[in-house]
């Protein structure tokens, strides 16, 4: 899901039609990569505990959170931002639900909680971009 969003923001950053937002979308790309790295790192640090201690958990169903991003070059900026909004909300919901889960070990749920909080801030930023671009 993060990879799809990274691709979307990367495309928007490169699109000359929205050059005034280039820095913003480049920042989003970097932040999404860092968020992905946060989760990867938590996984790599916890995997041994899971295997050796035999922790079992009733996980979430990722299919409940998946989304498709149609990355069309012809989309307007506001439509692209709406698309990103949907994607970010799905990721935020997933991370929030994992963060709340008591059955998943605390290092992992904490990492997802962190990402969920950042996605809340991202939602606010996307909403303000949408307001500005819709006026335009």
């Amino acid at each position, binding site marked *: 899901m993060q990879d799809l969003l990274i691709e979307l923001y990367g495309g928007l950053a490169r699109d000359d039609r929205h050059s005034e937002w280039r820095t913003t979308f480049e920042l989003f790309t970097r932040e999404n990569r860092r968020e992905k790295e946060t989760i990867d790192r938590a996984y790599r640090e916890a995997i041994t505990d*899971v295997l*050796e*201690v035999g922790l*079992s958990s009733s996980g979430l169903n990722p299919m409940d959170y998946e989304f498709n991003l149609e990355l069309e070059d012809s989309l307007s900026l506001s439509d692209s931002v709406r698309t990103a909004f949907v994607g970010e909300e799905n990721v935020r919901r997933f991370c929030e639900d994992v963060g709340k889960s008591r059955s998943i070990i605390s290092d992992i749920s904490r990492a997802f909680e962190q990402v969920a909080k950042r996605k809340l801030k991202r939602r606010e930023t996307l909403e303000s971009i949408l307001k500005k671009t819709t006026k335009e």
Partner: protein
Amino acid sequence: MVVLEEPIKEVRTLRNYVNGEWVEPSYSELRDVVNPATMKLCAKVPISTAGDVNAAVEAAVEAFPRWRRTPPLTRSRYFYRLKELMEGSFEEMSRVSVVEHGKIIDEARGETRRGIENVEVATGIPSLMMGYNLEDISSGIDECVVKQPLGVFACIAPFNFPLMVPLWFMPYAVATGNTYVVKPSPWTPMSQTKLFELIDEAGFPPGVINMVHGDAEAVNAILKHPDIKGISFVGSTSIGRDIIYREGAASGKRVQAQCGAKNFLVVMPDAIVDETVSSLMTSFFGSTGQRCLAGANLVIVGEDDSFYRRFLNRVIIGASNIKIGYGLDESTQMGPLQAEVRKKRVLGFIGKGVEEGAKLVRDGREFEVLGGYPKNCFIGPSIFEGVAPDMVVAKEEIFGPVMNVMRTKDLDAAIGMINASEYGNSVAIFTSSGKAARRFQYEVTCGNVGINVGIPAPVAFFPFSGMKDSFFGDLHGQGRDAIEFFTERKVVITRWF
């Protein structure tokens, strides 16, 4: 079925790493390193001669005086760099381990993590190797203990955790000021080769850490070399006890030999069944049974036939659901054995168990492999019921996915059986009773004890224990034991006129 990208793009002939350089050894032969899941050639490993070992030790001897004078804080900073490099190559190193060993990707990632943890602990050496002192042991006279490095140490590594095991020893040895020679297993040499690429990149001074690929000749050269102060070994009891410990100690070397195992897992009638069965699957069949902490004998305690039958059925169902395949396929739950010769050995034990009269309730000789890979090294989980303690399958280390199920009427009898075993590597009890758990932990003659933990693997800041025929020496790998093993206490008494 998602198969991750292969980490090995071409077949290379591996080289030794001596004095900060990659060198072609004067090898006696080149052996194939084969991916046991695909049966494809991954690399060729040189079987070095005694001369190659001598060259590595010479480089380590030469590097020692200057390294020993390097402040501990500076030494630890190399390990900070190594840790970051290992994190950056985490996935690649893990996949290399899958390809040469056969374990599944999550097991390999777990191994990589445990290896890194030892590097992390070694960065604490400035505090960890402090001595102690007292003023005025007599009026105006002070006494202190300092811990000093000794010189060159060596590690003879096993095939089953090719990345992790040398890291139980090397970081502590080197961070405390010694220099080092690693001899990886010739079966699984690529993981250490990858690690040494990172060691090279971290910029350790030449000669401080060296690697020599090889087999018996290299081992003998290490055992006999007068400049090697100590040896760390992980492998079979017969080699560890009769060759490494005996000959190493006879030539005045410090030795720590972590050897074979036959681990008992005891299930009490008040065990929490779901979590217990899940733990048992990982313990008995994880890494295809090729770990010294693997469960071997399952002891179900009590006279309740209905509990016994229900529990055993859950175990059989769990084992039957294990998906067997290539470790780079993320849906796989159990990979192949590391080599055909190991499979032949395991098959021999299964045949022996049947011959001895144990009931084979799950026959691992019949299995399917996801993805249609060649079956040469694959085998399924096997479960024997009605195993008696004096059967060969109950006493000898199989090193494969074979579970022997036994019953005892009470905890007394289970503890008696465990303590009668020649081995004392690891043991576990599954119970809700603190009283039973405490008694168990107190009385068993085993080094690594799990209470509701199926694989009681000590983390890096604890010693990897072991007793009886599972360990020879006085000090174990990892943690404070490792620091004591790699240093000598020098007592200084001072008076100033």
